[in-house]
């Protein structure tokens, strides 16, 4: 049990990597504020079942990253509980595929709103709690696109690169408070996002990957567990590629 007695805030818990992280963290003893975009009966049932099976407290929190009003309300719910938050795992985000010249400024700003500004806002609010407690671990989810670039993902890759910059700066600013800040850069992972791709495009994405397969959401969640837990107590300001060795 690597997270016994810890409390985590995880965003994007409804599907994919977020769901896998929620399940894994709960099984490792963490209480979780499980954030997702909108109330969902299936999700509420899953959370109840998971809490029952693991004996931890899991509270769903609903907010949309495009609405500061909803985010404020969600954060208030967490802060008002007056409990320490040991781990913030920012998973929620949205991919966007469009060539540079086909990306309107409106779309660019929309992507940055979801993949960058909202993460910063949430992190600002919750690291205040961590600073008071003088400990914590913040994990952002970047992407190999933010490190290597990816044709057709100008907005997404730029927002993720910005997130990496913020991760390193935050690590420097918050280190003195005992708060570690690291990023995960997933490669090609089997999620709904990648399942929507045509098969050829999917195979093309995997070209150059050292491990000859896509990753599983559970494998990304395991790397998140490492960064969230005390196993990584001397690791900060890093970007951990979980990509089967596709570049870098």
């Amino acid at each position: 049990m690597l997270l016994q007695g810890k409390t985590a805030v995880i965003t994007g818990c409804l599907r994919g990597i977020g769901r896998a992280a929620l399940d894994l963290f709960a099984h490792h003893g963490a209480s979780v504020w499980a954030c997702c975009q909108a109330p969902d009966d299936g999700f509420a049932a899953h959370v109840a079942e998971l809490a029952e099976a693991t004996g931890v407290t899991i509270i769903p929190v609903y907010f949309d990253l495009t609405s500061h009003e909803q985010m404020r309300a969600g954060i208030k719910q967490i802060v008002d509980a007056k409990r320490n938050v040991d781990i913030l795992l920012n998973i929620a985000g949205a991919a966007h595929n469009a060539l540079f010249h086909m990306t309107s400024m409106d779309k660019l700003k929309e992507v940055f709103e979801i993949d960058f500004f909202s993460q910063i806002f949430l992190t600002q609010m919750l690291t205040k709690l961590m600073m008071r407690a003088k400990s914590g671990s913040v994990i952002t989810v970047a992407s190999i696109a933010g490190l290597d670039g990816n044709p057709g993902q100008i907005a997404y890759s730029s927002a993720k690169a910005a997130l990496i910059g913020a991760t390193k700066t935050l690590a420097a600013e918050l280190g003195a408070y005992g708060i570690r800040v690291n990023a995960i850069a997933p490669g090609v992972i089997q999620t709904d996002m990648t399942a929507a791709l045509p098969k050829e495009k999917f195979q093309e994405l995997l070209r150059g990957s050292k491990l000859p397969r896509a990753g599983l959401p559970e494998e990304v969640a395991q790397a998140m567990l490492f960064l969230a837990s005390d196993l990584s107590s001397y690791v900060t300001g890093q970007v951990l590629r979980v990509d089967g060795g596709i570049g870098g």
Partner: protein
Amino acid sequence: MNMKLMADRNVIITGCSRGIGRAMLGVFAENGANVWACARNATEQFVSYCEDIARRHEVRITPVCFDLRDPAGITSAVRSIMASNLPVHALVNNAGVTLNALFQMTSMEKLREVFEINFFSQFLLTQYVVRLMVRQKGGSIVNISSSAAIDGNTGRSAYGASKAALIALTKSMAAELAEHGIRVNAVAPGITATDMVGQSMSQKVIDETVAQTKLRRIGKPDDIAHSALFLASDMSSYITGQVIRTDGGLGR
């Protein structure tokens, strides 16, 4: 859910008598691993430490003693490990020497000696172990590099270069061996509280370096052991060819 990350796994760790390797032995055993604990000398103290760890965590710890400067010693050590007919799930190349000498003051002889221990010997040992892992169709190799390999530090030309060579080796091996299900990664420790650091750095340099870390503290041998544990275990099953800086946020 078995929470022991290395339950029933067999691991080779080099440089187990002191510092980071000694910590690794404890951390891996605590997590259920059986370990071939490699060290230069089978001192009474080392052997009884191995026995103590084995008893405490109910695992098998086998001391294996050889000098990394002696290729024949490496060969016979590997033979003794293979004679057990057990699978080797992970190899942690931790043993190494430090050298603190300015570039112009580093003799070719010293340079070669550092590379002999920090690079060539690891290369040979790993070749042998990989042969086994290819047959098993899987394994994880963890090389212990250094932040000095990435950042460069005054007085570390030989040491830093040998550790940088280890990083390049890590990445090439990751590319070559992935098809066999073998992952290869590295840990780059920063300043860590070991005898090696105590002997090769002045207190002033240690204090200055610690002040440069984001976390404002010196690393503990366990910190490094935990990163190696992560990379050796299935927790990192989709990670290969990477270097995890475990340095409290030193450097970039």
